[in-house]
């Protein structure tokens, strides 16, 4: 511990060097621990990500809706829609426009949902359809078409089955997920897309289903199946009940 002569004193005194060494040691251990913590720290959970996505979607929808509500737009028939408060202002300033108002025309109902008379399909078609049913649908929807509540919904007395055939075509082509209520029971299983069936097979089996088990609905044509298949040609995921507006 003898004092060194002034000129040979080190730049950093020995005690300070030790202090720095202790500090460096503690700092290194801390840095390693913080690095480990950051590495193993639970990131954003999938649940939180899903929620954030929903919040963003909702905000986007609301923004679109308020834009639509707040701005003028051209209708298909060449007339214009304007926001209500603007319309009231104009009506107050120029009462004569009220006389020119025309009642809004309801859009024409889509042709497919128009009721049609029941025409039974020919025997051969129903036979082919039954064969396809026995090959593909029967495992879940059962030979009776009653399904297995509460996992597989019945095909009887279901507007989804007997209504617009494009819906059933979509289910067969791409599958269906999401909650669906049939005869008071809510099913939340997933229907997988049916593989290895031609447009003809789909038309036959849907015709069979729509005209069996007590159902009396129109036959399904190959052209209808082809139209749906072409319209959704890029689709790789099942249809979602929410997306289709099914309850």
């Amino acid at each position, binding site marked *: 511990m003898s004092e060194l002569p002034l000129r040979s004193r080190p730049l950093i*005194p020995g005690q300070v060097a030790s*202090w720095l060494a*202790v500090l460096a040691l503690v700092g290194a251990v801390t840095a390693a621990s913080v690095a480990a913590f950051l590495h193993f720290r*639970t990131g954003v959970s999938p649940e939180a990500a899903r929620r954030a996505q929903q919040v963003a979607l909702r905000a986007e929808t609301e923004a679109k809706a308020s834009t639509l509500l707040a701005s003028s737009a051209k209708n298909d028939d060449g007339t214009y829609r304007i926001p209500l408060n603007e319309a009231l202002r104009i009506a107050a300033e120029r009462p004569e426009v009220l006389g020119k108002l025309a009642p809004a025309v309801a859009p024409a109902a889509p042709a497919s949902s128009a009721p049609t008379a029941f025409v039974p399909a020919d025997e051969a078609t129903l036979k082919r359809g039954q064969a396809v049913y026995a090959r593909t649908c029967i495992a879940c929807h059962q030979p009776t078409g009653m399904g297995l509540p509460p996992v597989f919904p019945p095909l009887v007395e279901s507007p989804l089955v007997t209504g617009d055939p494009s819906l059933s075509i979509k289910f067969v082509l791409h599958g269906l997920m999401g909650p669906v209520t049939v005869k008071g029971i809510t099913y939340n299983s997933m229907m997988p897309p049916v593989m290895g069936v031609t447009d003809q097979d789909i038309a036959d089996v849907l015709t069979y289903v729509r005209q069996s088990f007590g159902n009396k609905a129109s036959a399904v044509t190959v052209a209808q199946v082809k139209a749906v298949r072409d319209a959704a040609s890029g689709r790789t995921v099942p249809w979602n009940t929410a997306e289709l507006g099914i309850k």
Partner: protein
Amino acid sequence: MTQEQRSGRPDEDRSRLSRIDAPLRAPFLLLFGSAALWLMLSSALSLLTTLKALPAGIGSYEWFAHGRLEAAARNAFVYGWAGNALFAINLWLLAQLGRFEIRNGWMASVGGLFWNLALTWCTGSVIVSGPGAYALLDFPVGAGPVLAASFALAGLWPVVAYAKRPTGHNFAAQWFVVGASVTFLLAFLLAQAAVFWAPASGVVQAVAHSWYVRTVHLLWLGGSALGLGYYFVSKVLARPLHAYYLASVAFWTYFLFAGWTAPASLIGSPVPLWIQSIGVVGSMMLLVPVLLIGLNLLGALSRDGGWFRAWNSTSLRFISIGIVSLLASLAIAAWASDRSVNAGLRFTSFAEGQNLLLLYAGVTFCVFGAAYAALPRVSGGRWPSAAAIHVHFWASTLGAAGAAFAAFAHPSAHGFISAVSAALLLIGHLAFASTAFAALLSGVPAGESQPAHD
């Protein structure tokens, strides 16, 4: 028998002691002086928190809301009083044990200065804008780095004193103090990271916070107090500790298990059960070092009239009470970590009583005892009044006992007994702080005079 033999220390060694103590004088004055001021502030704030209704004049200000006063008192006590006092006492102890002559004491002084400035800022902000969600971390975010840097400057010198000791001596007291000093900085930085800088999910924040609080209580404050216990019991009794060879096991198991007890404070809260179970296991395992430390220290005190001699030594009287309280609080913590027991204690003031036993009757009593020995040696002065020491001892002991009774046994009398106890503590601390200032300032710089008596 010559003078040399009777004093037990050759003259050469005596001059060496003063060369060790003299450069400690300036940092000691600053650090211990601030510690005494923080102690008085904290006791005054605690007294205010125990009053059920504040005087009409100040009761209507939100600055004096119970939560703010309590948080400010807690910060002033832990960081202001215990922190500053342990900077000074730990450095003195390890310089003493290793015959270390500090040449850069100004660094400790600068660290202490910034520590106190940052702490004043923190306490002010707690009072003015309210405490944060995390006890003992309720600072403005910017104060964290300042406190860490100040601690590095002021609090790491005991480690340097150990690393650069010219003697090869290796005592249990040194291990505890070195471990305590290193652990605080580590825990503080990690807690800042896990709670504020890169917070993870809420559960991780709560677990990290409980770990930090327990580490500060048990390792920094408790570890330093145990170091003081290991030194003073053997020093004052002038005999080796009982079963001293077990001290290394006690040290390692204490530092290994103390941090794992943290989740025991989260029993019954919505953190995963397995995390709570770790806390239960840690609390039980901590009984191993508690038994071994008890064997070392209380074993030595129990032989040949050791308790009697402890009672007659100012330092050891405080320190033996401190060690008993500290070990008792750890044993009680192990008992209270049992799930069925904990279910009955969860929403009572039991945890408050545990903290009081650990931090006040345990750590603070050890620091009091060490201060009675260290202050005269460093400053060259003397304690001016034996009566003041008696007032301090009895007021602090009765105050601590009353506060512990209020917390543990008699919650319905909480208000009145707590207030009386807090008033007693304030009286004791006024007696201690005023005489400590006299002892610090009365002495001529050490080196010019003989060191004071032991």
